[in-house]
């Protein structure tokens, strides 16, 4: 490797509160423009900020989940700049005394195995509004519903070494924050946004290269793609002996290219200073300890527990814990009496497909357990069970047994019926019968398959095999 890539990420997540950071307005996504606004979030003359205790609690929780130290005293600061979506002409953020610092996140790097990334800081801030360019021709409209939405900004150390690694870190970060109940982390709704800093250097060089900042990254896949494009551009310049300038780049998902912002657009001196409207944020150590104690089991711990407690393969444990909801569902299925590996297979298969499509679990754990029992008892075949599952997903009230019967999927183990189907199949395939008798015993599978087909999947495969063996015996 001639060049080493160095990446650090700044992630903004929307805290899962009902109301805004400094006023009582709702944070609901998708309401009509400028309906969730008040004097404070509109920046009207004389209005003052009132900190949202729940936002502070969630940010502290997130910080603890990321291994940070939450500071007993932190300070809100004003970040000054003019932009039409910023009602006060400054954003209330935290600057030299953030809520939390010095955390770490362990994740599975695609290249380096288990890697730890340092978390420089986590601080609280308010979001800006939104400019709407396509509503009125030739004009820009402003929607301030989002102005004042509580955010936590999470800054990582430059510990990431490839675009794929950046993506893997983001996936883990998102998992942790969702598990901790801190944020929904939905990129579609803008509740998770990423800015990436990237530079290159010679392997072994302790100094960092000149970094570029890539903004406007609207999916984890695009973070990876944009960083790939920017890495290529930097390596190209470096190979040609050209200097790499410090730039801010916008990623265009349409073309897959990064575009340089005019330097004027980014020449900001934010003139941070402590916000005189807000006394320092003081958190009692007992309160911080309470938040720590209140954290649910985090993804890594749960993964380890699933492996040990249920004897699952590492892969299964990782897939099942990728979403907290999947892990919860899996454990409910097991407590309903299903053997762990069988439950894992179901959850990673049909259940996960439905979950990815609908975001939910239309077949409750108890009903799935009932279905699995039908398979175990030979009442329905595994193949048929998948069809029953699909049916149960459509009919919330229905019991597995009833559905299987209604669909005619209950297996037939009756000796007479099985013998009838077997005889029909043997009669229809004389050549294969001859080859089997000549020693080609692997044709057994073919005969079983033919019987299953003729019985429209209803024949009990074990019974079929027994009858076939008798016939050939």
């Amino acid at each position, binding site marked *: 490797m001639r060049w080493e890539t160095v990446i650090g990420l700044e992630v903004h997540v929307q805290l899962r509160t009902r109301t805004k950071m400094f006023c009582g307005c709702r944070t609901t996504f998708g309401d009509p423009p400028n309906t969730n606004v008040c004097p404070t979030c509109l920046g009207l003359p*004389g209005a003052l900020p009132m900190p949202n205790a729940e936002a502070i609690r969630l940010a502290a929780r997130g910080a603890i989940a990321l291994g940070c130290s939450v500071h007993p005293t932190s300070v809100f600061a004003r970040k000054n700049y003019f932009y*039409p979506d910023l009602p006060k002409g400054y954003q209330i953020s935290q600057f030299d005394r953030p809520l939390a610092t010095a955390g770490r996140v362990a994740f599975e790097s695609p290249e380096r195995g288990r890697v730890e990334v340092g978390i420089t800081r986590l601080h609280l801030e308010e979001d800006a509004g939104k400019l709407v360019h396509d509503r009125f021709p030739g004009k820009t409209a402003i929607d301030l519903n989002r102005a004042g939405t509580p955010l936590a900004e999470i800054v990582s150390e430059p510990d990431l070494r490839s675009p794929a690694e950046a993506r893997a870190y983001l996936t883990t970060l998102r998992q942790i924050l969702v598990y901790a109940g801190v944020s929904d982390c939905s990129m579609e709704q803008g509740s998770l946004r990423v800015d990436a800093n990237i530079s290159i250097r010679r392997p072994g060089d302790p100094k960092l290269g000149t970094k570029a900042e890539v903004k406007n990254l609207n999916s984890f896949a695009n973070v990876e793609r944009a960083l790939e494009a920017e890495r290529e551009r930097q390596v190209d310049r470096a190979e040609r002996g050209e200097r790499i300038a410090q730039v801010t780049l916008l990623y265009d998902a349409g073309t897959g290219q990064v575009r340089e912002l005019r330097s004027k657009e980014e020449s900001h001196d934010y*003139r941070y200073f402590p916000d*005189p409207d*807000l006394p320092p944020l003081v958190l009692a150590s007992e309160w911080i300890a309470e938040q720590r104690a209140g954290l649910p089991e985090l993804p890594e711990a749960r993964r380890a527990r699933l492996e040990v407690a249920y004897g699952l393969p590492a892969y299964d444990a990782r897939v099942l814990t990728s979403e907290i909801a999947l892990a919860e569902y899996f454990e409910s299925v097991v407590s309903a009496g299903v053997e762990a590996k069988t439950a894992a297979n179901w959850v990673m298969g049909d259940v996960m497909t439905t979950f990815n499509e609908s975001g939910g679990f239309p077949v409750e754990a108890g009903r799935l357990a009932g279905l699995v029992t039908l398979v175990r008892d030979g009442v329905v075949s595994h193949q048929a069970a998948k069809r029953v599952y699909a049916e149960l997903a459509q009919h919330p009230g229905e019991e597995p047994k009833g559905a299987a019967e209604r669909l005619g999927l209950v297996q037939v183990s009756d000796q007479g019926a099985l013998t009838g189907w077997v005889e029909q199949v043997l009669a229809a395939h004389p050549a294969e019968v001859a080859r089997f008798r000549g020693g080609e015993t692997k044709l057994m599978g073919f005969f079983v398959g033919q019987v299953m087909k003729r019985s429209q999947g209803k024949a009990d495969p074990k019974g079929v095999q027994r009858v076939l063996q008798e016939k050939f015996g």
Partner: protein
Amino acid sequence: MSAPAVAAATGARLVAAEASSLNATLHWSQALLDAEARRVEASPGGPLHAVPVAIKDNIVTTDAPTTCASRILEGYVSPYDATAVTRLRSAGAMIAAKTNMDEFAMGSSTEHSAFGRVQHPLDPSRVPGGSSGGSAALVAAGVVPAALGSETGGSVRQPASFCGVVGVKPSYGRVSRFGLVAFGSSLDCISVFGRTVDDASKVLAAMSGHDPLDRTTLERPAMVPPAPRRDLSGLRIGLPREYFPADLHPGVAAAMERTKTAARELGAELVDVSLPNSPYAVPTYYIVAPAEAAANLARFDGVRYGPRKVGPGGDIRALYQATRGHGFGPEVQRRILVGTYVLSAGYYDAYYGKAQRMRARIAEDFRRVFAGGVDLLLTPTTPTPAFRAGEKTEDPVSMYLADIFVCAISLAGLPALSLPVGRTEGLPVGAQLIAPLLEDERMLAAAAALERVVAAEAEVR
């Protein structure tokens, strides 16, 4: 007198004040006054029942514009009332008028109003002080018994001194700033003018107390107007020598001598004290206040409210430049520039950082003196009586120095008041009483005792 009668009489006095070119009001109407009277009549019995109170035009109200005497807010009407206004109304007061002021409370003469200067009620060629000059003039002219002003660095005490009325600045955090258009948020205090200490105390008490809408209000119950003291026996009053310079105006010096004598005769013990960092208060103030102001005034950008000017090029930058360039007067622009400069990367520590450290030392001086057994401090409020209009408008620093005795107290967040103690060449002189943090009541009680014995309207020699 019934509330409607008070409203009618107040309206008549406002008409007369307008006819005399005082230019103290920006918005008022008989219809609004009558509406206030009807509201008060419907729920009688508050401690301020039917008392007409004028409000400085940087305190928001829903029934009249709030312009801060600036073009940039011309015609702006707030959709909500300031906490102070709501509380005054629940105490039975009637809002009489919105008063003229230095634009965004930046000034010491009420000459920096976009809507013309306010005249001194006793001498039209002189200034009433500022920035709350309109409120001071209305009380001095006898139009209303009390009025709200706002202080960032003496903007009530200084005009109270110039106009010969009582001006009280409470401890920072005792009156909610919710609805006070911010200038220097760490300094801003809604403050009160009254004809008497008692009037001012009652208005202050009605507004005071914790407000969940202002995180900087103190978790203390509302003030109770103190019973006036009969005398000052048992009180040790400090005279900080830095506030009695050799070049003090002779009329002011004479009035202070008379006040000291009166205090002694009332039984107070007067002691010499020192506040060595107070001489740095004005330069410190002119870094801290503009820094906060530059951020606080950023919201006036022509995007959401107020008159909008579209500049050449038609882009957003041009809109900001044209709107703010036309909307803000020269003194406001000067302070925004200063504030932006002192917070800039590379200058922050040399200016803002250093000013914050000095602010802490100034406050520490007061704490040390009070901890040393001094109950109150007594100083002149201003180095001179009211100056002539135009005298200082070309020289901002000489204007800033008009606040030399009031700034340090604002930086320290302490309660202080100005009490009229005499006249020199026909112009009022004020004495300043300063109390430890949250000892507003001690200060008001002592002021009431002094008020009874000093001949505030008599010429001093």
